[in-house]
């Protein structure tokens, strides 16, 4: 520590934090302390260690005191060498960034951010299977319950649905497949192994094999733990990008999660193709279903059905690739069996009609 002779004084201005009077003062440094002297008054002693850098103001460096609210000391121009070692250094960005420099700090932050996003994007794949099934089931029950009584059930129809599910999956016990009496062409997989097929999809289907393809696809989501993964990923992204405000964050969020949902769709399709091969169900009908969907591309909606079908497209982005995958899995000359008999198909199709105590529609939105 430089020893400063007591007679070494520097001119400055001072606010004592008690009143708004500006005081022209001399700084009189003695060791690690200093006094501020006016013509008839002496303030202090103050410790250099209590000084904080406040900022630059009109060409002056301004310092504050840790303990005294509003205490200010202003020094115009360059800080004299004797004082600069004792006073805190000027601050630009603050803390870490000043220490690293803007360039290095930016790169460091960018690397950390990329790592955090990578963790949020990739770990759900490993974390999702660790979530106990019982938790997931409870969550699904809390979310869906009995769907407001909209699940259809008749003896024959439920049996047909169960037959289809058993054909497509080895452990159908932990699945809950339901048909909901809602006029939407869609199907969803929800937490806890719940698969819901909407009545609109069944009305629109030309054969039970189409339903089998879509059902196997949703079972694929369940078996690959996509639902939990998506929940975890969405949760993580919304926390990580919570700092970003408004549109930037949500655009990034949407882009990142949708790229994952495309991968998930492909995996579910692969599962569906395998399941249908094992069950000896022809994939041709499902390919045909995709072909019908892909013909409706928003601009060209010839009938009312089209508008409802776009519901499926919004959650299951379509591509010719998906249709071809199902077409290519068709084995020439193989004897496929229909997934349901004509009678079973009929009872599945009319299950909602014939269920006397089912609710219809979609609550307040219908």
């Amino acid at each position, binding site marked *: 520590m430089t020893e400063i002779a007591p007679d070494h004084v520097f001119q400055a201005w001072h606010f004592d934090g008690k*009143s*708004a*009077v500006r005081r022209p003062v001399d700084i009189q440094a003695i060791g690690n302390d200093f006094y501020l002297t006016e013509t008839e008054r002496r303030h202090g002693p103050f410790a250099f260690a209590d000084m904080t850098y406040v900022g630059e*103001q009109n060409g002056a460096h301004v310092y504050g005191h840790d303990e005294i609210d509003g*205490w200010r000391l202003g020094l115009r121009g360059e800080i004299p060498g004797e004082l600069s070692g004792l006073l805190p250094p000027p601050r630009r960005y603050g803390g870490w960034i000043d220490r690293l420099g803007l360039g290095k*700090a930016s790169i460091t932050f960018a690397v950390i951010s990329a790592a955090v996003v990578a963790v949020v994007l990739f770990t759900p794949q490993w974390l999702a299977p660790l979530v106990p099934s019982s938790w997931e089931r409870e969550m699904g029950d809390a979310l869906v319950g*009995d*769907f407001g009584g909209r699940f259809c059930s008749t003896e024959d129809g439920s049996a047909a649905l169960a037959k289809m599910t058993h054909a497509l999956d080895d452990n159908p016990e932990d699945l809950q497949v339901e048909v909901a009496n809602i006029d939407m062409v869609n199907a969803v997989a929800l937490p806890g192994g719940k698969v819901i097929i909407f009545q609109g999809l069944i009305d629109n289907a030309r054969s039970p094999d189409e339903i089998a393809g879509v059902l196997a696809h949703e079972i694929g989501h369940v078996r690959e733990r996509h639902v939990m993964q998506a929940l975890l990923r969405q949760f993580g992204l919304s926390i990580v990008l919570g700092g*970003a405000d408004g549109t930037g964050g949500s655009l990034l969020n949407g882009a990142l999660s949708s790229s994952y949902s495309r991968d998930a769709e492909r995996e579910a399709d692969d599962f569906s193709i395998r399941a249908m091969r094992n069950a000896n169900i022809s994939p041709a009908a499902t390919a045909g279903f995709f072909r019908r969907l892909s013909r409706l591309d928003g601009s060209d909606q010839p009938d009312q059905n089209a508008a409802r079908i776009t519901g499926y497209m919004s959650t299951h982005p379509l591509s010719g690739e998906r249709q071809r995958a199902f077409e290519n899995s068709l084995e020439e000359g193989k004897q496929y069996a229909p997934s349901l008999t004509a009678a079973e198909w009929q009872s599945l199709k009319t299950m909602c009609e014939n269920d006397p105590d089912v609710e219809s529609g979609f609550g307040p939105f219908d």
Partner: protein
Amino acid sequence: MDDYSSRSESAPPPAKPPSAFQFHGNWQDFAKIAFPNLLLTIVTLGIYRFWATTREREYLWSQTEFIDERLEWTGKGIELFIGFLLVFFLILMPFAVINFISQGLIFQGQEALAGLIVFLLLFAIFYLTGVAYFRALRYRLSRTYWRGIRGGSDNPGFFYGVSYIWKSLAGWLPIFLLVPWSSISLWNERWNRMSFGPHMFTSNAEWTDLMKRYLLFYLVPFLIFVGIFAIIGYLGATGALQPDGGELDPGAGALLGVFAIVVFVGFYILIPIAALMYYSKFFRVAVGGLKLHKLEFDFTARSADWILFFLANMAIILCTLGIGYIFMPYRNWTFFVRHMEAFGEINLDELTQSETTRAGHGEGLLDAFDVGAI
């Protein structure tokens, strides 16, 4: 005596002082802060924006001179960040969970219960918005220093949140006709709880001064609709709208063009102008009613200033493909300072330190609800 008016030797008041508020900064210096801020905000996925805001305010405040001394912003990025975290974990997350539950309830057919929950949720947000307005003003005053003295308030603003609800509702209830009353009354209530140094602010703005402008703003949409219906009526009467497959009468074609112009001018030009005219009057009335001890304030921006201000902002943002957005804090602050005036006198000996508490967190709520206030 430290009375400012008597301190002529240190700061001689000119014959006609331009304004008690002077801004000494320039946009080039601001750019040196704003561009690194943008970079750091991007690489930190937005987290840096609290520190970015703080650095910008430090610059803007330090370049603003009130009478003879610069203002000083002493807020910290961490305070805004903590405010944000508080909002995120105490408000946004629970709200997201409640929202999730209420969606589950809709699925399960409990629409009434779900509706009630959503209603309570919105009501809570409404209340917290009021509290947020209050606390943001309190935070800003408590971090603003002039001559080592700061402002603040000891009121936590929870009661103000209640006033915010009932006064807003009372303003909307008579077909929105009492909105000027509710906004001026809330402005007065907010400022009357604030102080600077030892002095309380007093705010006595009169809402009745606003009514003429408000009615103008209120009537413009009706006048536009009347115009639209007059043209439709005329077209209907002349049969131009009959789908008889015949050629459109050229006169009616011209009228359709006029119709389109009326709609466009009405919605995109007249309504915004009427809104700005009201806003401009609101600020003049509201700031004009504000006093601090022997100081009176005035805001001099007139409608034309506001319109030019917004047009210039839009031009800056459009011509820079959006990058100019980072200069908006600079534009807003300089517009505000350029038009602020203060009259009267300050006794510097009497202007002693504020005794109010300094809340340790920033404007998180206001930030979260995406509202701004002076």
